[in-house]
């Protein structure tokens, strides 16, 4: 699997996720600087967590208009897999690749802790390795993670099977319908607030996040 991680000024989980990807794939991860518009050939493009361009105005809003994201949108339309984690999810919604928006947490505070998620379907390239319905534990770390879309849009996303993960314990941020992650129509673009790369190493207290990367690895090495 050839994976590329986009680095915006202000990205700060780029190294973490590149490290996890490298551990799973056994090959180095390409790092793509935000000013570059020619992305390397990739099976997977990752928009990492952090505070792209300072996350001023709205989280992800500035990055969504960067040249590299325009290029990512093109690739996504051509069917390339795209994963947005946390700030990456915010960027993908702002760029219109995923529906909805991520608003300030209901309790107005940043929150960093483990949450339990349900894997809503385990037949996508991102989730094939997960057991159906078995809750997984993954950390969140964000201030703007309250998933919002109007009722019609929510019905549509749910109806099309595009909810990827839901919070199963306390809803940590007020997200509508407990949504923690959503897919694009073709199920090849995934955005989620939790950080799977943060629990992908037994030394850090868990490995539930690792399966997401392993699933992708298997999908692209058939």
């Amino acid at each position, binding site marked *: 699997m050839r994976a590329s991680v986009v680095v915006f000024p202000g990205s700060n989980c780029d190294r973490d996720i590149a490290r996890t990807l490298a551990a799973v794939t056994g090959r180095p991860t390409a790092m793509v600087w935000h000013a570059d518009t020619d992305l390397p050939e990739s099976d997977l493009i990752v928009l990492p967590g952090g505070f792209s361009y300072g996350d001023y*105005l*709205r989280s992800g*809003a*500035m990055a969504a*208009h960067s040249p590299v994201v325009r290029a990512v949108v093109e690739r996504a339309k051509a069917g390339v897999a795209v994963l947005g984690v946390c700030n990456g999810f915010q960027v993908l*919604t*702002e760029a219109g690749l995923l529906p*909805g*928006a991520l*608003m*300030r*947490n*209901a*309790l*107005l505070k940043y929150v960093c802790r483990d949450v339990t998620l349900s894997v809503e379907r385990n037949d996508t390239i991102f989730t094939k390795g997960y057991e159906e319905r078995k809750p997984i534990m993954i950390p969140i770390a964000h201030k703007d993670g309250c998933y*919002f*879309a*109007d009722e019609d849009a929510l019905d549509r996303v749910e109806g099309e099977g595009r909810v990827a993960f839901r919070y199963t314990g306390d809803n940590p941020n*007020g997200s509508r319908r407990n949504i923690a992650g959503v897919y694009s129509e073709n199920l090849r673009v995934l955005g989620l607030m939790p950080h799977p790369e943060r629990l992908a190493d037994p030394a850090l207290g868990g490995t539930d996040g690792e399966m997401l990367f392993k699933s992708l690895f298997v999908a692209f090495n058939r």
Partner: protein
Amino acid sequence: MKARIKVTLKNGVLDPQGRAIVNALESLGFNGVKDVRSGKYIEVTLAETDPAKARADVERMCRELLSNPVMENFQFELEEA
């Protein structure tokens, strides 16, 4: 010219910040606060001197960057800087 832009949450979008302000005002002893809605205020100073062109530009700025149509509305006034 100068544009004074207000970005507000659409009706029906929950506004926890507004809610928190209501509570804080109450605990400060302000009774009779019926509702608070929170938003953003942005002043953009433009080199453009033609009002029509400035208006079109600001409209586009609001649409493309300064507001998110999923949850926000915007309105603005223009004036000579």
